[in-house]
């Protein structure tokens, strides 16, 4: 069997993964999505191929997912982000029953059955408030980069209470807090805690069941995972390191592997 690829064109980052004939992850890459989604997908794919040490002719099937999945012109088929995240969560943790995925502009909670099918799901209501965009804006208004968010929150002594999670109004929230003497680290951690509350609301609405698997870019921040784990009380899985951002792309690749096997069997 040939290798397969999964691409997750998210609103903030585009991720590409390559699985070999055994189903092992052999290459991955991530790029800012920007506004040229097709170019971001192609670049991420090319870097993932290089990382895997294979060429495009070694790839037998490509599945794209995420916000910009229809813009991947070299795909074979597309799947929804929820389906891809479910498959990816199962690839890492086969007993996953509830998946919480917080990305740049969405917060999604999905309940799965024992066949990895989506049973029910829920997205953040109305707007992108309380997603990665809110944390990024909060950090930016305090002159910190996205890469510094995790360390900044970890140095917090005591988080401050953040009243709103709207990315548009994050600036005024930050200014208010700084003007009363709050430390940037405590503001950052306060922003994370406010996201934890919203995440739990969403998970309750789908009647969450363990094991819980946390995925998406926001889960690369240790204090976010710690706070969620404390609230969920156990049975919490999180892919290691930056892999937490590749779950959707890996899920797409595992589906690509299934499709390729079917295609090859029919030939």
């Amino acid at each position, binding site marked *: 069997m040939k290798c397969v690829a999964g691409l997750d064109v998210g609103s903030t980052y585009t991720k590409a993964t390559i699985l070999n004939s055994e189903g092992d992850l052999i290459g991955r890459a991530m790029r800012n999505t920007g506004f040229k989604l097709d170019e971001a997908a192609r670049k991420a794919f090319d870097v993932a191929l290089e990382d895997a040490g294979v060429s495009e002719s070694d790839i037998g099937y490509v599945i794209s997912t995420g*916000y*910009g999945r*229809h813009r991947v012109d070299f795909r074979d088929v597309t799947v*929804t*982000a*929820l*389906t891809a995240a479910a498959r990816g969560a199962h690839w890492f943790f086969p007993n996953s029953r509830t998946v919480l995925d917080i990305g740049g502009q*969405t917060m999604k909670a999905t309940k799965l059955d024992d066949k990895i099918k*989506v*049973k*029910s*799901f*829920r*997205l*953040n*209501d*109305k*707007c992108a408030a309380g997603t990665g965009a809110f944390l990024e804006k909060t950090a930016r208004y305090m002159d910190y980069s996205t890469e510094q968010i995790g360390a900044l929150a970890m140095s917090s002594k005591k988080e401050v209470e953040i009243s*709103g999670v*709207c990315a*548009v*109004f994050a600036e005024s929230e930050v200014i208010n807090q700084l003007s009363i003497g709050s430390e940037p680290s405590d503001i950052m951690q306060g922003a994370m805690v406010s996201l934890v509350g919203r995440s739990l609301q969403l998970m309750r609405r789908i009647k969450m069941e363990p094991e819980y698997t946390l995925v998406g870019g926001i889960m690369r921040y240790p204090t976010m995972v710690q706070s969620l784990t404390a609230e969920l009380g156990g049975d919490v899985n999180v892919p290691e390191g930056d892999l937490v951002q590749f779950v959707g792309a890996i899920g797409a690749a595992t589906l690509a592997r299934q499709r390729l096997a079917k295609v090859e069997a029919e030939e």
Partner: protein
Amino acid sequence: MKLPIVESDNTDAEFENDGWRRQFVASEPRLSEMCELFNSLGKEVMLVPTIQEVEELDEACKACFESTKESTFTIWTRTNSD
């Protein structure tokens, strides 16, 4: 896929009496994806313009939604057996 948009003056309670369950508000490109997913779960989907909901928002959120209300919809679902 043609989106099941319904122009209606019904209140939430009236929709609920007809067996509908309010899900969440979304806009494209996720709106089509969510309709597709709910359909795959065997649910009938109805999309209602969010004009009524926008009126109920606080001022800060209202300003934001006023600019996008033409393209945002509340997703309602009910199981096909209902």
